[in-house]
């Protein structure tokens, strides 16, 4: 488990805890064929990312989640170690495509819902097992022109 609690870190200077998501590993046995290709993982402040090995960034494409405050081209920070529950914003595989939706659990039935009044309520009638990829912990949106990120 992480050595620090998030609230402890928040007390200190948030800028002081910028750590890369994952350190690079040196192999004791075989030299790693990845050695020449290693790149620093995308940096996020540790207090936003309590569990780095399970945290991945996804880019959002589309407008169906605007009701949840997630817009086209935003970034979603997805934590695979979070348990999904009713109301979670999740990334899930739908018809072979990764999709960002809200999870709605009604009794035994799990469904993926749009969050945009212009769209029908549900994306799929019923959700199969093992299709939820991870839970969106927070999203990132730019309020100025993005330049190279666009």
């Amino acid at each position, binding site marked *: 488990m992480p050595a620090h609690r998030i609230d402890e870190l928040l007390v200190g200077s948030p800028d002081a805890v910028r750590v890369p998501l994952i350190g690079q590993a040196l192999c004791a046995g075989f030299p790693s064929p990845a050695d020449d290709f290693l*790149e620093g993982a995308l940096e996020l402040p540790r207090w936003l990312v309590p569990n780095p090995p399970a945290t991945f960034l996804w880019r959002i494409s589309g407008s169906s989640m605007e009701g949840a405050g997630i817009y086209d081209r935003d970034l979603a920070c997805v934590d695979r170690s979070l348990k999904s529950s009713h109301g979670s914003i999740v990334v899930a595989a739908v018809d072979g495509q990764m999709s960002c*939706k809200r999870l709605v659990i009604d009794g035994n039935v799990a469904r993926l819902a749009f969050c945009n009044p212009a769209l029908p309520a549900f994306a799929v009638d019923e959700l199969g097992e093992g299709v939820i990829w991870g839970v969106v912990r927070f999203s990132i949106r730019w309020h100025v022109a993005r330049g190279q990120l666009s």
Partner: protein
Amino acid sequence: MSAPAPRQRDRIGGGRAVALIDGNSFYCSCERVFDPKLALVPVIVLSNNDGCAIARTAEAKALGIRMGEPYFKIRDLCRRQGVRVFSSNYTLYGDMSGRTNAVYRQFSPQVEIYSIDESFLNLSDVAPGLREELARDLRATVRAWTGIPTCVGIGPTKTLAKLANHIAKTVHELQGVCDLTDPVAYEHWLCRIDVAEVWGIGRASLAKLEAMGVESVADLRDLDSRPVRKGLTVVGERIIHELRGLACLPLEMVPARRKGCAVTRSFSSRITERAVLEEAVAAHATRLGEKLRREGLATNHVSIFYHTSEHDRDAPMRSVSTTITLPEHTNDTLALIKAARLGVAKTWREPGQRSWRYSKAGIITNDLVPLSHSPRALIDAMDRERSGPLMAAMDACNARWGRGAVVPARSGLVAKRRWNTKFEMRTPRYTTQVGELPVAHA
């Protein structure tokens, strides 16, 4: 050490436990994490320059695609059978490897990263009855957090852990975990597994063992190790000890200091011009410098080599290797480039009617020492005071803006290198480049 208590003696190896965990078809599994369309279809990953299949999913293995099979031989099969084929995305695999090891460290404070997809964990502190449960929890956590499926083998020694991992992977009913510290499982499996599966038993030893009537792992374990010393060398004796539960190989949590370092590459296409070869060896020397500086090491000689391909049987063959001695130990890229170019200058031969078509070049060093401990030359001493900060600045730029952002002019701009390794079917670097993130549709 005191004698083991009678109860502990029941356990093989007197309470020690090492787990070997590895990713199933690791490179293919990394690709599958980000693309749900790959879930149930055969997937293979190719080596550098898209040469051979180096990772295969179970579905691809079932189609008869062998490890190391050249891609050109199976291209048609792949097309017919709908096999999804990818170039190596080592940036992604390296990042995913780091993530899996971060999860392992939550389960054991002592982790030896053995290769990109295999790690040893010390589980000696875990009560024998809880080891299998812990291993199942570890597998489930790695799968949930990173998406990578794994298998875990537990044994009192590394050799037995490796064997247990093989059993966990091939015996479906075990559901990915095999614990050979359990005496019942130990006795059960050792007489059922072929001796060829033992770590470190090569083809040559196998023939000798066969002549001695050794078929199963248990047969090898029960050999008298003294006569074996003659037949199988000291390694064979060590393997027998390890199979009996006597640990001869410690966990190496800190990688041993590098003694040598090499940067070698096959060209994406054959090269015939001196200028291109010089650029390639300069680029290899640049990479060598980075690797040495990362570990604070230095060298006082470099060997360079280049050769034609054994596959070009009708073309003129040439293989060149030469060693250049430096005035003193260094890890300065510019000094290494100078030496590498000197190596080409010394050995280059202008082609006659038919030119040599070189397929590979490399630069190799041995006897590395820490730069800070290396003796200084009395005459011709290099200017370390100037070189150190320059190299540090170059490394910092490349760390911040990506590999190849700043290179010495001699090694050519990365984007313009025609000879660079090809990865034509590579997936995006999903986890390390903000411009290549996976896309979720909303």
